[in-house]
């Protein structure tokens, strides 16, 4: 996808216009390459990717890009509307909203990436074990996941944050926990399908170790749904973080977070629309970008995956 990628785009996927499902044997690297190529041909996905790139830059370099410090309190400049000096206006403490929105990108990305990372690591491990070993291991692990799945997402996150105390770390953990079962389920379903395939059975018959089979044969073959799930979960996780912050349970002041800015600005929305508008728009754009990319990936990698479970698992 980068400009440096010199490989010519492969010819349009071969044959049969009716069936464009990828062949099951494509491995992880191939999956990713195919996905990236396909993204390049989908305008919304390109837009989403560009937004994400910008976000990444802002997330990494927000401090330096921000025209002012995030905590430059100036009581003589309180609640000023957008102007040349403050393109997004100032907040109730006279701080530059643009700077805070820029710096807050890092929090959102960080919580999103880390929590989904946790969910991915734990969920995939659980799913692999449950799917591969079956029997009691499967039963115990998956019933455990069912239990976590039995709570509405935000409720569980709020409950976890409530007992552990609000803050960045607990919010990240809570979101990670909440999104774990979906990865476990996706992984397990994939493992069950792959387990019966010839190359896996062959590997078992020649005595390859379980760990090696899982890593070399199983994981690459379930990469597609996992990639899709990851990108969509990122969107949900960022929304969840914003919701927690909006409840005052996420990152604590004075550190800026989009949800928290909405929370703090709530009392002033009717006087100062910019306090409510810009942070919300930032959340929206970020989530939208992840969704666009995620949807495009799904179309390419896993076209039949709009399932009940996805509808079940949004942000609530």
């Amino acid at each position, binding site marked *: 996808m980068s400009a440096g990628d010199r490989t010519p785009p492969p010819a349009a996927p071969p044959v049969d*216009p009716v069936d464009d499902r990828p062949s099951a044997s494509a491995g992880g690297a191939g999956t990713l390459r195919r996905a990236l190529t396909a993204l390049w041909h989908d305008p919304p996905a390109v837009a989403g990717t560009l937004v994400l790139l910008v976000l990444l830059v802002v997330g990494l370099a927000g401090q330096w890009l921000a025209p002012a410090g995030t905590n430059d309190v100036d009581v003589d400049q309180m609640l000023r509307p957008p102007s040349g000096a403050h393109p997004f206006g100032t907040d109730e403490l006279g701080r530059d909203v643009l700077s805070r929105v820029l710096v807050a990108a890092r929090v959102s990305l960080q919580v999103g990436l880390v929590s989904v990372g946790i969910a991915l690591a734990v969920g995939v491990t659980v799913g692999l074990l449950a799917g591969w070993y079956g029997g009691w291991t499967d039963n115990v692990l998956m019933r455990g996941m069912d239990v976590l799945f039995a709570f509405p997402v935000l409720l569980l996150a709020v409950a976890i944050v409530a007992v552990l105390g609000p803050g960045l770390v607990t919010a990240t953990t809570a979101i990670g926990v909440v999104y774990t079962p979906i990865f476990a389920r996706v992984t397990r379903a994939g493992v069950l399908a792959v387990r019966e395939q010839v190359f896996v059975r062959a590997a078992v018959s020649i005595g390859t170790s379980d760990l090696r089979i899982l890593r070399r044969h199983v994981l690459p073959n379930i990469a597609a749904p996992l990639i899709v799930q990851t990108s969509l979960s990122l969107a949900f996780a960022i929304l969840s973080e914003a919701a927690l912050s909006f409840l005052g349970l996420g990152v604590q002041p004075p550190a800026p977070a989009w949800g928290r800015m909405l929370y703090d600005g709530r009392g002033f929305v009717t006087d100062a629309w910019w306090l409510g508008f810009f942070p919300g728009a930032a959340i929206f754009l970020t989530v939208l970008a992840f969704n666009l990319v995620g949807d495009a990936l799904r179309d390419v990698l896993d076209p039949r995956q709009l399932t009940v479970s996805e509808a079940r698992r949004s942000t609530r």
Partner: protein
Amino acid sequence: MSGAAVPSPRVAGDTPVLEISDLTVTLGTRNGPARAVAGVDWSVAPGETLALVGESGSGKSMTVLAATGLAPRSATVTGRVRLLGRDLTDMSGSDRRRWRGRHVGFVFQDPMTTLNPVLTVGRQVAEACEEHLGMSRRQARSRAVELLDLVGIPAPGRRVDAHPHEFSGGMRQRVVIAMALACEPALLIADEPTTALDVTTQAQIVELVADLRRRLGTAVVWITHDLGVVAGIADTVAVMYGGRIVEQGPVDAVFVAPGHPYTRALLAARPRPGAAGEELAAIPGAPPSPLDLPPGCAFWPRCPVRGDARCAHELPPLVPLTPAHRVRTFYPAAAAGSRDDAAGRPAAGSRPAGDDPAPSTPEDR
């Protein structure tokens, strides 16, 4: 069959029930246009059975679907189609829908998916009568009972209110046939109606259709990839490959003297009685992608005769072998033997499988 149904008007003399000329269908796909059917002509007379034969993807189903206005929305259809003397291509969409529904019955391949799972079979069998014959719901139901009885479903009065999943595959196909016959159509289009069934049931269904045709005088277009079925039921046969007709003629003539290498290969590939368990002689290679048809003969990459460069670059015309028997090849009957079991077999066998330099996508399954 003493019901209130009004049969399709029987056309006078030898006016074909369905007449297709120069039909071309192009499908818009994500990967560009795909020409599924190209310049197809054929007709079927009242009471006649036409068998449309070819591998899957050869365009035989698309031909009839496009002809009757059932092509997917992405398709562009050109050419002329006359049903009972009326030009379907000139009609408005809704006229065409009515005309088709009234005069053509369809039997599709898989009875498991052809029936709507949430409606009773009776409702599905007779709803066309409500639509086209102005029957009331009640009349339609008793008509459905009659039809179920006609196709040999036991206890039709009770079964009429059952849902499809309560029927076996063979019984379902009988339901589908009953449904196709609901308005006593002039034409029955049977699109591989036996493929999804076991052998015994297949025979029963074939027999049922033949019997109904005799009793009702319906014209039949029978689509199949299995030449074995064709011999028993069809009057004429049209073989399709890559969206075109490659050979067409009376069943006897085609079976006795197949003019096209592809027909010969198909005949060779057909399972023969007494050879059960024997490996079928499959045709090496794969049919061409409709996205990427060669300029010349579509069969050329797989052709055992192979001919010369002309085959690759120039489309062979349909040439008559006899007035009713036409073949699309530059080498008609050149290698044709006289007996069907000899025909093509040595030719097909002369090239070892796997040594096929087909340009199309070697890694593709």
